[in-house]
């Protein structure tokens, strides 16, 4: 299990960070593969993790075009839509990850950790929902204050990504091999 969390940690890191030099060095497909591998390990003990396997695998395939195009710089309609799609898929993968962790942590007596997982879930999803809602209205709204809001939401999304990574690291340190 610890190994699984390790894989998931690195996987998410790959998805979260983009170091784009000619192409994305921390490529998304690799990140999704790592999450897929982590999900497979988890599924041995928690069958619900199968869903993580599936969505991570799909994520691996659909994020391939993103390697070659720097999505932050491109301005065309199609790529914008694609970037939005990747964002949505990331949220879905994380949703299933949380589902797996919540059921995994149920048996153990870690009440505080359980609360922390739930709290992180609410904040992570809340911020991401706001960002997706914002994007939908961006078709019709513009101007300076709207752009400032984007900056704010982007920073919040980054903060949530970091919070998630920290949570994954904490989950890894749980004594998963102990008898329930």
């Amino acid at each position, binding site marked *: 299990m610890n190994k699984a969390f390790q894989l998931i940690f690195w996987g998410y890191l790959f998805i979260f960070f983009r170091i784009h030099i000619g192409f994305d060095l921390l490529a998304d497909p690799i990140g999704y593969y790592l999450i897929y591998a982590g999900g497979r390990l988890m599924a041995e003990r928690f069958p619900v993790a199968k869903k993580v396997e599936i969505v991570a695998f799909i994520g691996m395939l659909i994020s391939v075009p993103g390697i070659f195009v720097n999505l932050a710089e491109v*301005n*065309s*309609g199609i790529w914008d839509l694609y970037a939005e799609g990747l964002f*949505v898929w990331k*949220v879905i993968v994380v*949703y299933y990850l949380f*589902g797996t962790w919540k059921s995994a942590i149920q048996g153990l007596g870690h009440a505080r950790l359980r609360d922390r997982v739930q709290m992180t*879930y609410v904040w992570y*999803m809340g911020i991401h*929902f706001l960002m*997706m*809602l914002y*994007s*939908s*209205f961006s*078709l*019709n*709204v*513009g*101007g300076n204050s709207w752009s400032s809001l984007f900056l704010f939401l982007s920073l919040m999304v980054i903060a949530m990504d970091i919070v998630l990574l920290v949570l994954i690291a904490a989950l890894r340190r749980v004594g998963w091999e102990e008898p329930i």
Partner: protein
Amino acid sequence: MKVRLFWVIMALIGISWVANFIYAQSQKLEQPVFLNHFIDVRTYDNQYVTFYYLTNKEDQSFIQVVELGDIRGLPERVGSNDGVREIDQFGRYSLREVTVQFSPEMSGTPTAPQRFTEMNVYFSEEKPTTYPIGQIVFHPWEEQVQPFTFVSTHAGIHMEERVRIAEPIMIESVNNSFENELRDHLFVKLQSAQDFASEQTAYEYGDKEWNEVKGTDARAVKFPVKLKTDDWLAIKSFIDPELHAVLDMAIGLKGKTDTGEPFTVPAGYMYYPHLDKQAVQTIIRERTGAGSNE
């Protein structure tokens, strides 16, 4: 239960996307909308004209060349988007400006002013199309007597040009190239005094209401107005803000010097409209004819 809630919210967000997309498509401009411009171009000055137009936010096109009748204009292709600069954003639409250099002498030397109300524009992503742009007049070079010395210009809510009279003259009328269109929207006041030095009243900073600005409305002035050397004259102009048009025109003072020579001296007037979302909707509605939903 949190499980279901997630998908419900995702579905709602999906609906928001679809609704916004449909709305955006319905509000989409089929082609750019140029603001109304009222511009005097003197073919002996630099012939750069800046045009303003509204287009969809996502429009990436630039302008390759424009034509006013026979006169070609080339946009200055500098900057990131080949010369097109975004000035402001109003919801779905973006206000852009482009500076065009015209070469009127290439179409022969005109002897009379040439007036255009439409411009043929070659956008990079569209077929060449003719757009109404207001009115633009090209004035041929004319040898002119200059009985004034321009002293200063002040621009605020109203614009003010101050001149000092260089020789005794008689002003017979005040006019401009767009009398018909601007009659109810452009207001001019004249103020003069005998002694330049003593009546050096300060500019009316603080941008007074036009009603309170000193001077006599040009329509009420009893022409001809006689002025002596060293008198000063202020030409004050004000445009109705509801006009939402771009002005770069001349308010001409016509008359004769005491030695009988005629003159027409242009006092420049530039105005750039302050636009808000409502003004933009009005402009678009007037141009496209159809009602637009807000």
